[in-house]
């Protein structure tokens, strides 16, 4: 990190110090809270990567598109409810909750369906043919491209115009951080979603199936687990969570519905999954939150334009020095 940034500094010929420790200290709480907010969204998307990786040992590249379909679903839900781009409408609390719940259900359904279709159309034929590993990865890239381009050809290259139902308002401040209603909703709801997912995987029959297949597909099959059904289920669960993440993201960034808008989030969520320990549900949560916070502090230190670089560097460092992530693997093995 030091090396990377210092060389950039020389090239940039900046006269002032390249590390803004003042900003870092001044905005510590603001960045921490903001980081948790983004981090909880990363965490939900990361769960999708982690589940699929755990069960199939597949980096599901197209998961970012599963997410962005949820974002579009959110937008269209708002649109069909009669809301239009422009100023935030005044809504009664009850109405607001009802609309948001409707949106999250639609987004989850759309993302879940997308994930299911992806699995059946793209990955299953490969499994049936016993295709080699890299074929899956290339298919994932191809499928990601196709899903993305469907949106591009249908909705064009620009982001959908912002529709927002809830105006962020500062409730109270902690140090430099202003805690907004949106922050609380996103963080709390994400952690709730994660809890549900964790309980599902660790406490239910289907969850046991998922863990069994992740640990040893062959034995699991011998023990009467229907592997194909478990794989489908895994994709769907990942999709549902991505759909929920999409709603939260759209509440935060209402301009988020853009055909290629999932890519960066997807990469970061994957980085989060790896950081926490891929295949590990708790790792996804921890990695997501941590990445969000580190990224925010990183941009305070080095400047906003380096935000994405921080995430990539983190990903590379983790893979190089601790490929099993912080918590290590639990659903399956991390290294091939």
């Amino acid at each position, binding site marked *: 990190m030091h090396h990377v940034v210092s060389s950039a500094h020389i090239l940039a010929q900046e006269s002032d110090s390249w590390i803004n420790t003042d900003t870092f200290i001044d905005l510590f709480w603001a*960045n921490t809270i903001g980081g948790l907010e983004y981090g909880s969204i990363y965490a939900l998307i990361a769960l999708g990567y982690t589940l699929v990786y755990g069960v199939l040992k597949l980096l599901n590249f197209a998961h970012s598109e599963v997410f962005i379909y949820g974002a579009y679903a959110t937008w269209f839900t708002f649109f069909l409810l009669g809301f239009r*781009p*422009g100023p935030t409408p005044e809504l009664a609390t009850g109405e607001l909750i009802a609309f948001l719940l409707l949106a999250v259900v639609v987004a989850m359904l759309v993302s879940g369906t997308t994930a299911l279709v992806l699995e059946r159309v793209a990955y299953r034929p490969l499994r049936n043919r016993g295709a080699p590993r890299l074929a899956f990865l290339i298919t994932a890239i191809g499928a990601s491209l196709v899903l993305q381009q469907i949106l591009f050809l249908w909705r064009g290259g620009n982001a959908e115009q912002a529709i927002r139902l809830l105006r962020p308002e500062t409730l109270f401040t902690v140090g430099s951080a202003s805690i907004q209603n949106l922050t609380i909703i996103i963080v709390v709801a994400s952690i709730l979603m994660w809890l549900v997912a964790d309980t599902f995987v660790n406490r239910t029959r289907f969850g046991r199936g998922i863990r069994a297949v992740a640990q040893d597909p062959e034995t699991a099959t011998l023990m009467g687990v229907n592997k194909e059904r478990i794989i489908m289920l895994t994709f769907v669960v990942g999709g549902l969570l991505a759909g929920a993440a999409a709603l939260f993201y759209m509440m935060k960034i209402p*301009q988020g519905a853009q055909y290629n808008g999932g890519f960066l989030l997807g990469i970061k969520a994957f980085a989060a999954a790896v950081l926490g320990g891929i295949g590990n549900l708790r790792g996804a949560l921890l990695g997501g939150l941590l990445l969000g916070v580190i990224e*925010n502090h990183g941009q*305070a230190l080095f400047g*906003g334009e380096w935000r994405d670089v921080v995430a990539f560097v983190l990903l590379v460092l983790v893979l190089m020095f601790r490929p099993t992530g912080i918590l290590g693997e639990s659903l399956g093995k991390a290294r091939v």
Partner: protein
Amino acid sequence: MARARITAALVLAAAASLALSACEARTDQGGSAGNEPQADAPAEPANAHKPEGDGNAKCSNVAIAYAGTINGENAALGQNILNGVKLAVKKHNDANKDCQVELKEFETEGVPEKAPGIVTQMVNTKEIVGVVGLPFSGESKAAGNIFDKAGLPQISPSATNPALAENGWKTFFRGLGNDNAQGPAAAKFLTENLGAEKVCVVQDDSEYGIGLAEAVKEALGDKVVCNEKVKTKQKEFSAVVQSIKAAQPDAVYYSGYYQEGAPFAQQLFDAGVEAQLVGPDGVKDVEYVKGAGDAAAETFFTCPCVPGEGFTKFAGEYRDMFDKDPGTYSVEGYDAATVLLSGIDAGNTDRKKMLEWIKNYDAQGLSNKLGWDDKGELAETPTVWTYKVENGKIVRNVEIK
């Protein structure tokens, strides 16, 4: 506090401009009775050149071309221009039965990478005597020398980067004012009209955004209290917003395009920053108004473009043909095409003659007085107008004098 002061300044400015502007009543397409603009939009100049000419032109096998984004990124902007050109060509061809000018369209997707291939093809197409394009500064840079080499004149209806005219290209003409005009005007608006003492300048990474920001910063001098950078396609601006919040400016000038401008404005607004936001022509688009949500109503725009709502006839014809309102640079596209068409009507059916024709051109267009200096800049610097959002529409505010 700041807001109150700004409002007061605005009222004063508005009153002044009302007093200065002509008093003839005009129907206003855009605003309702309660939203009278603070300055009148100019009407279609009576002496404006017309693409239809006198209707007696004779020519054959001659074409003009549009090159630029059509379906690529930022396609809306390209479509606006192309439609303006199409309208001009249609009017010309309808009026002149013996001079049917063909309009050839070339898609560059707005990327510099494709420009040389496309432009080379254009210069190799002999019937093309003049080109409307290229819309963006990057692609213009990549291919301007090809026009120059081939002697094919190009009138850019929207590339405002000043450096483009400094390449010594003899075929480059700019159909509108450049950022050097807009920058000082914007600074003037910020300090005088809005009374801002502390300004944050935010620039994107485009040729346009950087150039304009430089011009604005130079004119603002020590009133610039922070200078932030954003990137094309960026959607998340927390770092920039935090820095601006910390700098506590009276006003923020966003030098970039609406795609990033809209979410930026919204996040600035959400964070409770009360500084007045001002954006340039790249932000002045209905997409911004829809994209920025609550923040849009609080934004001013500067633009070296004349308010189009006075051009009722043009707007009507445009709507009839394309079923939508003219957008940013539609008028400029129309004007540029008219220059070329009138040249053809005057018998300038080869490139050399056309180049001479444009060089010597001196007539009122719909938007600007069109006549060029040696570098291809408009000889008469066009005025810069400010705009604001009212009821979800962009309406004119004041002319910066």
